[in-house]
């Protein structure tokens, strides 16, 4: 659910800092045509709408030349905004990726089958690194403010000296070499001219005599600059504060992401056309899985167990922010666990392929599960017992007591039934909520998050307008 906020953060940061980035070298003349400032913002915006994306595809979507896109992406990589992955792959690898894309972005399913003829090529993929972006932006803001503040109270700045004759520059670190024996000034090493202190770079003005007036003017200028920084970057800082406690969306490495996205797609959409092929590509064991669509129905069946699952899920999440697909796999595991033999092969596939970390997680998950299962079993038994008692009571009562009594017990039983049905409903609810977030949501407490998100997105829209105004 945090992805919206993070995307907004990315967009704000892009407009604040990467607005005037041009990929052309400085030596080339900037004619109207070659001026590509603003492309960086477009690319970052496009990336917020995607997860891992192949750079060729991105270039095609943005109608950009791949070279230009690459240059910008490399710049972003250096800025630590995105992670990239390069790998050699043939048609198969491309397909795994394609199916993963299809799983996450519904609209992008078209016409990828034509890529079958691709020989082994090196493909580059890129993806926003949200956690790192958060840190990068924060660090950048911190440095900006620190620099201004230091400059403001002359702290931690290394004084520079300049020779008026030969324009040679020195810093205070050279002081020992510059001090002369005959007078109290510093002297240039090469021409023995008298050095003058250079006033600060940020607010350097004509005179360098450093009198009081000059100093005051410089101070005012710096203060003004600091205020403007605070004012203009306020939306960004607000967004940073908002995002602070949210878990950053995490897509993992390209490989892991593909595996997970495919797994999620299988879990959510039932059998996908690409699935069996992708299974071969990654060595899933090649089992086609036509049954997964059914699982939903069967799970909704056992309302009580479902409830237990949710509890365990909630208790797991606080320990560590789990990427949603992990939880999903875990859920599959627990749902399909005992008694459903045909799913067995299915659940082995994703967890085995998704690497050791997943395995560990599912083990920890199992422990919690066991305890809860026992609790559920006990609860079930108690419930069952009670229902039996009630049934017997209803059988006996007509003979022994008044109609009033019959009525009472009957309603009581109804209540029991009803509650059970409610639980079933709950199970179904959860299923529904689970299915749509294809990859980029954190599942924790789903319902609450959904509400919050609705509010937040409203806010977002409002503020987006604000910013547009400021920029315009």
């Amino acid at each position: 659910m945090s992805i919206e906020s993070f995307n907004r953060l990315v967009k704000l940061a892009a407009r604040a800092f990467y607005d005037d980035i041009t990929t052309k070298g400085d030596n080339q003349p900037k004619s109207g045509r070659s001026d590509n400032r603003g492309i960086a913002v477009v690319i970052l915006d496009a990336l917020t709408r995607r997860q891992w994306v192949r750079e060729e595809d991105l270039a095609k979507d943005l109608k950009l030349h791949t070279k230009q896109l690459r240059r910008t992406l490399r710049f972003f990589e250096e800025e630590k905004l995105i992670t990239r992955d390069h790998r050699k792959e043939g048609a198969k690898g491309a397909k795994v990726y394609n199916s993963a894309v299809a799983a996450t972005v519904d609209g992008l399913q078209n016409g990828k089958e034509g890529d079958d003829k691709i020989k082994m090529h090196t493909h580059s993929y890129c993806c926003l690194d949200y956690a790192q972006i958060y840190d990068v932006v924060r660090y950048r803001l911190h440095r900006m403010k620190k620099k201004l503040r230091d400059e403001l109270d002359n702290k931690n700045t290394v004084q520079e000296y300049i020779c008026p004759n030969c324009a040679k520059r020195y810093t205070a670190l050279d002081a020992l070499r510059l001090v002369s024996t005959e007078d109290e000034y510093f002297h240039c090493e090469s021409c023995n001219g008298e050095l003058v202190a250079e006033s600060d770079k940020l607010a350097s003005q004509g005179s360098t005599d450093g009198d009081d007036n000059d100093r005051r003017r410089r101070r005012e200028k710096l203060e003004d600059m600091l205020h403007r920084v605070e004012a203009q970057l306020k939306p960004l800082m607000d967004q940073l504060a908002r995002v602070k406690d949210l878990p950053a969306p995490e897509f993992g490495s390209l490989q892991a992401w593909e595996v997970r996205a495919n797994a999620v797609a299988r879990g959510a959409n039932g059998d996908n056309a690409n699935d069996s092929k992708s299974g071969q590509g990654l060595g899933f064991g090649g089992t086609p899985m036509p049954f997964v669509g059914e699982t939903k129905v069967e799970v909704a069946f056992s309302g009580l167990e479902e409830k237990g699952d949710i509890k365990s899920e909630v208790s797991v999440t606080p320990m560590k922010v789990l990427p949603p697909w992990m939880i999903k796999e875990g859920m599959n595991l627990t749902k399909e666990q005992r008694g459903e033999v045909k799913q067995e092969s299915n659940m082995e596939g994703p967890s085995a392929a998704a690497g050791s970390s997943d395995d560990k997680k599912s083990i920890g998950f199992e422990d919690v599960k066991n305890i809860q299962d026992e609790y559920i079993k006990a609860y079930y038994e108690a419930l069952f017992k009670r229902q039996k008692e009630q049934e017997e009571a209803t059988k006996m009562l007509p003979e022994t007591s008044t109609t009033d009594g019959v009525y009472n017990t009957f309603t009581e039983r109804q209540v029991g039934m009803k509650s059970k049905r409610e639980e079933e409903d709950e199970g179904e609810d959860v299923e529904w909520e689970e299915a749509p977030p294809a990859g980029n949501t954190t599942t924790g407490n789903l319902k609450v998050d959904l509400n919050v998100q609705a509010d937040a997105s409203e806010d977002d829209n409002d503020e987006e307008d604000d910013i547009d105004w400021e920029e315009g």
Partner: protein
Amino acid sequence: MFFHIVLERNMQLHPRHFGRDLREKLVSKLMKDVEGTCSGRHGFIVAITGIESVGKGLIRDGTGFVTFPVKYQCVVFRPFKGEILEAVVTMVNKMGFFAEAGPVQIFVSNHLIPDDMEFQSGDVPNYTTSDGSVKIQKESEVRLKIIGTRVDATEIFCIGTIKDDFLGVISDPGTNA
């Protein structure tokens, strides 16, 4: 900051020292050689506190000198950016003043001296507040903060500031003597 570390050095010893007190000779030569030197990596070697080990000597062809690899413990002093030091003023001029903290030379430029202190030239150049209550001159002791270091292979030079809370003169030369 001071560190107690183990360093290694190859000592060349003249054949005339070979004898009963070869080891003492080696140690005293080591002390003479390294104490007071400065390496950019470790800082100033202040004192040798002990010998860890003396390796096998290797006789040089032709000269008869023997090279011993010696491992020794020593106290080193390495100034860091942001560190607070107490130093003695050695020279005051219009551009600022120089001070020494042990082996380290520190320069405090005049814009890192509080604004209310003015340079007074004359017989004893100094920086004085307008009311004359605080005076920085030669032999004054000041507490300063290092804001920059230049570390060369064989020397370390620092620049400092006294324009911060609790920095500045801590004792006048008169009272100290």
